[in-house]
């Protein structure tokens, strides 16, 4: 909207202003001017804070948690933009955005093995490894926050609660409640059988088959048809690191029927 020009418009405006002032209402444009001033002041305070405590943010995951929680409480997202004050002056942005890059890279590197599903623990472990000895410590809370931000870029980043922690999904595979609950069931042993699904969840065989078939198709589960008893559906994402080894994509293809 453009401010009207011309004598008539000016007079009208003066009248409106007077009316507002009478009612004690402040005009929006006056408030914007006020905000500009307050912003400058705030920036100064933030600079002061940064000069004293910037290190704290980078060194202490505890401090980062408090900081994030406080921001959330007042309705501020310090990670929304690299151009934000928080990012520019406190360096919070770079910390989390770089972490985002590392998370994407780890997930991509392991996708052929686990289909795009990885435990938060394993992700944490690998990210720390990738960061090297002298990098700052990164907590699981840090990872979770970085992942939440990655969601903005599509591509199916998400977190599935499983066994007291999370599975991090990095592919757009559709996982509904049925799939999720079977993943949770499989968490204990790293695999699940149709009978177990039927017994624990009280489902029909067809429903259970449908779910495991989907997981197989998406590359999230591997079939061990030679297991004793009945076939077992293994989830590579849930293998403990000690018991697993890296396979090439060719080997992975051979392991499914």
């Amino acid at each position, binding site marked *: 909207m453009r401010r009207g020009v011309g004598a008539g418009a000016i007079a009208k405006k003066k009248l409106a202003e007077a009316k507002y002032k009478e009612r004690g209402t402040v005009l929006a444009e006056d408030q914007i001017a006020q905000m500009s001033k307050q912003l400058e002041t705030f920036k100064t305070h933030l600079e002061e804070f940064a000069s004293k405590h910037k290190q704290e943010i980078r060194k202490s995951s505890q401090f980062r948690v408090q900081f994030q929680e406080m921001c959330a409480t007042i309705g501020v997202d310090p990670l929304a933009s690299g151009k934000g004050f928080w990012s520019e002056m406190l360096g919070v942005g*770079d910390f989390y955005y770089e972490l985002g890059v590392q998370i994407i890279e780890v997930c991509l590197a392991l996708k052929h093995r686990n289909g795009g599903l990885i435990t938060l623990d394993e992700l944490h472990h690998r990210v720390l490894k990738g960061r090297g000895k002298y990098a700052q410590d990164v907590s699981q809370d840090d990872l979770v926050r970085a992942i939440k931000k990655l969601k903005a870029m599509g591509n199916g980043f998400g977190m599935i609660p499983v066994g007291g922690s999370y599975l991090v999904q990095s592919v757009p595979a559709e996982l509904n409640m049925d799939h999720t609950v079977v993943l949770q069931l499989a968490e204990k042993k790293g695999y699940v059988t149709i009978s177990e699904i039927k017994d624990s969840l009280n489902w029909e065989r067809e429903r259970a088959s449908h779910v495991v078939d989907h997981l197989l198709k998406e590359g999230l589960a591997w079939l061990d048809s030679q297991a004793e008893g009945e076939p077992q559906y293994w989830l590579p994402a849930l293998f403990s690191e000690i018991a697993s080894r890296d396979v090439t994509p060719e080997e992975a293809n051979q392991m499914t029927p």
Partner: protein
Amino acid sequence: MDLGIVLLTTHRLIWRDQKNHECCISIPLSQVIFFEEQAAGIGKSAKIVIHLHPNPSNKEPGPYQHSKFSHIKLSFKEHGQIEFYRRLTEEMTQKRWENTPASEPMPTATGSKTGRTRAVGIVGIERKLEEKRKETDKSISEAFEDLSKLMVKAKEMVELSRSIANKIKDKQGDITEDETIRFKSYLLSMGIANPVTRETHGSGTHYHMQLAKQLGDMLQAPLEERGGMMALTEVYCLVNRARGMELLSPEDLVNACKMFESLKLPLRLRVFDSGVMVVQLQSHSEEEMIASALDNVSDKGSLTAEEFAKLLGLSVLLSKERLLLAEKMGHLCRDDSVEGLRFYPNLF
């Protein structure tokens, strides 16, 4: 056998029944005399045994007033014992409950319970403690004190911005376009979500416009190399790795890309049905991509996304999207089995 989850905070040890979430046992860390590990053995899982002081006389009433045991055992059926032991050691060394006030006293209980446990993140509990801490602002470390003061000022900014946004919505007063743009940039600086925006074309700030132009230059070559299309996450990594510092947030990238069209840059942001977001070169038309997919599939008889990816040197994700697109347009049909998703030329 009770299964549960044990949580460790700076002040307490909390055990919660996995089935019945109402059932919760909490023990202040100040009550712990010492604790020890018991290694796993055949038929035995690893345990941590925690020895406790006898009840203080000012103990709050709780489910148990006392117990004949002076210790509890946490049995880790699967794993987590090592990490938990480490964290417990840390908390017991730091004794943070002595410095920072906890929330109002919780009923405590002693008793011996064994259960399957696994160390879990402490964020949820910390959150509650933090909120109380803000109110009872006593002897917190200087950094937190300063942080709290800073947040109070930030909150004033948030409230002011809300008031302005409401006025804009209600069209009170005359806001120029300039002022609107300035306001948006203030919101960006503070990290306040813009409540007034209905834009599908990004945030509309100068910053993102500049960014869009930079990206337009920077991504030409990489896009050409990759067949004209890159997943947004790929772009994110590429751009940020090149920058080294003053990195872009995911939202910055999305907001910048949304402006390609209005700025008449030769790139487009595109969202596939699956939710995958890509940046693609304007010059790489849809028809070309589909024709090439059809050619390749016909040539080989059939292709999976992985095979197609290898052929073109693209990521599996994007190869799949192209095949899906060709299928959507009726040029390919699928054979979906547990062996994978395979595409054939559509001869119908």
